[in-house]
């Protein structure tokens, strides 16, 4: 045996890890934001009665959900340029994760939409609101409250998926960790510190979601 833990090398490059973590968070934030817009539109598509809207939405969700995200990441970065769509590493990954989160969030939003009683829409119609006004003023805010718990776990799992960007050399936390590992050979220390950073960040995200949940809770 005789492996003695020595974190000195890791601490020396700790700034790189923090920069990597910052990039991981930025990737997650950007992708989820775009993904939420895609997901919301898709969710309305999924519950639509019009087959021309419903079917493409369903196809999109099932293709994305049945493909491993690593394959999607590699496909976008290596295969799409062959068809003339050449994106930078970061853009390529955000594009992929946005599409990916869009499909997962669509399912979360869909469940939230179905939980809203039809009578509220009718009450909106009865005072003369248009379908669009009903969606923005009544359905979306209520749905958002309903889905907060599952939205939180989806966000955390999407944040963790940013580690796959290492596969296309995006310098986020996992990539930086691997770099330090290769340079210092402190295998246990580097991956231990990286794991702790992920756990720490996810706990913060979970705590933030709980605060949002509490603040938006309806008085009764």
């Amino acid at each position, binding site marked *: 045996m005789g492996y003695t833990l020595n974190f000195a090398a890791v601490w020396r490059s700790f700034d790189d890890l923090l920069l990597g973590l910052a990039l991981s968070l930025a990737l997650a934030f950007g992708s989820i934001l775009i993904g939420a817009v895609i997901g919301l539109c898709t969710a309305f598509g999924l519950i639509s009665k019009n087959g021309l809207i419903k079917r493409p939405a369903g196809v999109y969700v099932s293709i994305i959900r049945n493909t491993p995200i690593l394959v999607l990441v590699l496909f976008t970065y290596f295969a799409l340029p062959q068809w003339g769509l050449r994106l930078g590493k970061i853009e390529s990954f955000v594009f992929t994760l946005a599409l990916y989160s869009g499909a997962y969030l669509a399912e979360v939003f869909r469940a939230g939409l179905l939980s809203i009683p039809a009578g509220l829409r009718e009450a909106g119609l009865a005072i003369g609101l248009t379908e669009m006004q009903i969606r923005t003023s009544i359905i979306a805010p209520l749905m958002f409250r309903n889905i907060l718990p599952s939205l939180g776990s989806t966000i955390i799992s999407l944040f963790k998926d940013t580690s796959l960007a290492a596969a296309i050399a995006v310098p986020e936390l996992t990539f930086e960790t691997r770099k330090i590992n290769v340079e210092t050979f402190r295998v246990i220390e580097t991956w231990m510190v990286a794991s702790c950073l992920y756990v720490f960040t996810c706990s913060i995200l979970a705590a933030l979601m709980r605060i949002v949940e509490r603040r938006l809770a*309806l008085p009764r």
Partner: protein
Amino acid sequence: MPDNLLEIRNLHKSYGEVEVLKGVDCSMKQGDVVSIIGSSGSGKTTMLRCINMLEEFQGGSISIDGQEIGYEMVGGQRRRKKEKEIARQRALTGMAFQQFNLFPHMSAVHNVMLGLVKVKKLDRDEARTIALKWLDRVGLLARADHFPGQLSGGQQQRVAIARAIAMNPRLMLFDEVTSALDPELVNEVLQVIKTLAQDGMSMLLVTHEMRFAYEVSNRVIFMNQGLIGEEGNPRDMFHKPQSERLAEFLKTSSFS
């Protein structure tokens, strides 16, 4: 100006194969208070919901102030009007529902303000003033900032009535508004409706409260199997029913 506020002619409505309205004719004048009674499944709620296009109908016509609701003839073809136009026409009527349907994420006053701001395009201060005035009229000014979850069923229904009537509709539709309430809360809601009736509001009520229908309406319609079975003033209807069906229905209902 046409004489009749509401004019329903030969209204037909089916769900798939099942015909629920089989040619209903009905008219109302400004200031009329009309109660629709009848056993469940007779089509009374469906008729009410056709008037503000919450239900589509396949035949006949409905007009309010001479304005044809929901459908238009284009080149000999009957066509549903554009959504914007239907939304505008829906604002001609106000509706109160059995299940109140208040927006749970908005306080009482915001429930009432929503239509004023989004549909009538009033600025928020003006909308708030009108909303508070109507909450006061239904006796809930003190609860203006309460959320639906903090109000009793009776209070929620009164807010819902304020929300509908604040839009200044030509006609109020009440769809079994006391059916979901605990018995001790029914009266406060009926009292509000009675006050509105005395103020001259035109209304059409679907109700199971026979005593209330008797007291508040100037006309009663008895619906039976998708058709109007009998109609007249409440005194004749309740004391001297012409048809076997109505006599039977009154015997089994709470009116005594």
